[in-house]
């Protein structure tokens, strides 16, 4: 008995690249606040639906890419994103078959957790703390969860 569904690694890599591009595309300041954290949404999706395809490494590598692109302290986004990947992989059996609404709640928690970790590291490394603007993307990210699951669901065979 072999793996009937091979892990959707190719789709995962492509969508992760796409999510990075969407996450980092230069946007005007006002729009930038509302931009969801596409990378986190992508990592959560793949950790839920194909936890063995990327695993925590997916979170770490995409996070490291964010570090490099954003010029953050090396490891800041990597830590936050691999934490998200870890928690999601631990919970994936529980959350995978839940209705979208409950999944959305889970995604909100993950986005908040991610932002809290980044906020904390910002604080420790002596960066000025931003206002409430940094939390806005949690709401927009939650709104984006349904379209993202639908879109990413088409990139690989259902399991």
């Amino acid at each position, binding site marked *: 008995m072999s793996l009937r569904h091979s892990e959707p690694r190719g789709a995962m890599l492509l969508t992760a690249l796409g999510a990075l591009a969407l996450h980092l595309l230069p946007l005007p300041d006002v729009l930038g606040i509302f931009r969801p954290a596409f990378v986190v949404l992508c990592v959560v999706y793949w950790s839920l639906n194909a936890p063995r395809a990327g695993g*925590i490494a997916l979170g770490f590598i995409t996070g490291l890419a964010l570090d490099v*692109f954003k010029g953050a302290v090396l490891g800041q986004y990597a830590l936050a994103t691999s934490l998200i990947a870890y928690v999601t992989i631990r919970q994936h059996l529980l959350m995978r078959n839940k209705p979208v609404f409950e999944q959305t709640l889970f995604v909100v928690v993950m986005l908040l957790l991610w932002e809290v970790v980044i906020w904390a590291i910002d604080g420790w490394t002596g960066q000025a703390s931003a206002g409430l603007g940094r939390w806005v993307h949690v709401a927009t990210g939650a709104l984006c969860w349904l379209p993202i699951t639908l879109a990413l669901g088409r990139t690989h065979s259902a399991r």
Partner: protein
Amino acid sequence: MAAFATGATRSLPQRGPAPGLRFFIYAVLALTLMVLDQRGGWLERVRYGLQAAAYPLQLAMNSPSAAWNWTRKIFEARDALQVENARLREANRTLRMANLRTAALEQENAALRGLRTRLPGLVDQWLPGEVIGTETTTLRQRLVVDRGAANGVFKGQAVLANEGLLGQTLRVGPWSTEVILVTDPEHAVPVQVVRNGLRTLAVGSGDPETLTLPYLPIQSDIKEGDLLVTSGLGGVFPQGYPVARVAQVRRDGTSPLAQVRATPLAALDRDRIVSFVWFRDTHPAGPAPRADAPRGGDPALKPLATPPAPAPPPALAPVAPIVTPASAPAASTAVSAAPAAAVPPASLPTTTVPPASVPAVSKTSTPPAGTRP
């Protein structure tokens, strides 16, 4: 394969170490990176490599806007191009006129400094680059530009836009460079008010439209509309480049410091072409050496004796020989001509040495001017 036999638990991540252990390893790795990165230059090489790896994706992300610009350029109507051409011609003519005047001024300035030959230009070389990434949040105001170490860009280099100072290079990759803008909260640029020479620091606010001047006492002479130029201290920027215009000055009794805001002249969040600039170190207006640089003033510079010549009446002296040479009495011209001949040798050292010594001297005497709260 043993792992494949456990088909029932196929989707459980049971291959390799448990996820908890894996996460622990990654977390330790991330924390190590953070500590090393915070501790200074340990990760410069790593970052250099990562930046090189990131460059293609950065280019790809920039491609939509680049493509948009390209198509817009292609479909730009002929008359629009003609209008723009005429406008550019006009601008070019104006600039050339201004430049003629600049040349004359430079000549005059060199003569005033007692130099026999015209000074070489302050700008040695410059290199335009295109912005391929921006981050303008309240925490970071950065640009990524498609020029890097391969083009000779170095860390701590001044970056200018057409209208004024933009920032300096922060991290240099092989083909791309991260530029920290003057409005980054971690950036401060030493500036000077053109009107009266008042020196202070302009600190970024995290807003691309605002610089703050937090170290000015409440009684300092600054007002709205003042032009701020670089003061030449700090070792990165040369003297005299426009930075910002004071937009708002608030003095309230509760604070010993004035609250001053200035608007940067360069369109920090809109410029797409920026220039890296190499300055001639030997030019008097070049960046002053940093305080920690291993040089301490000019040993040849000695205190000067007061000129022994009798001082003519102060109100008349400068005026008499120049404006009304004929009407001035012969004795007066003789007296004022003597100092004119006698003074230059005595005062030359102070005027010719400045390339090295004026910044060093003014560095020690800077704080009282305006930076002390």
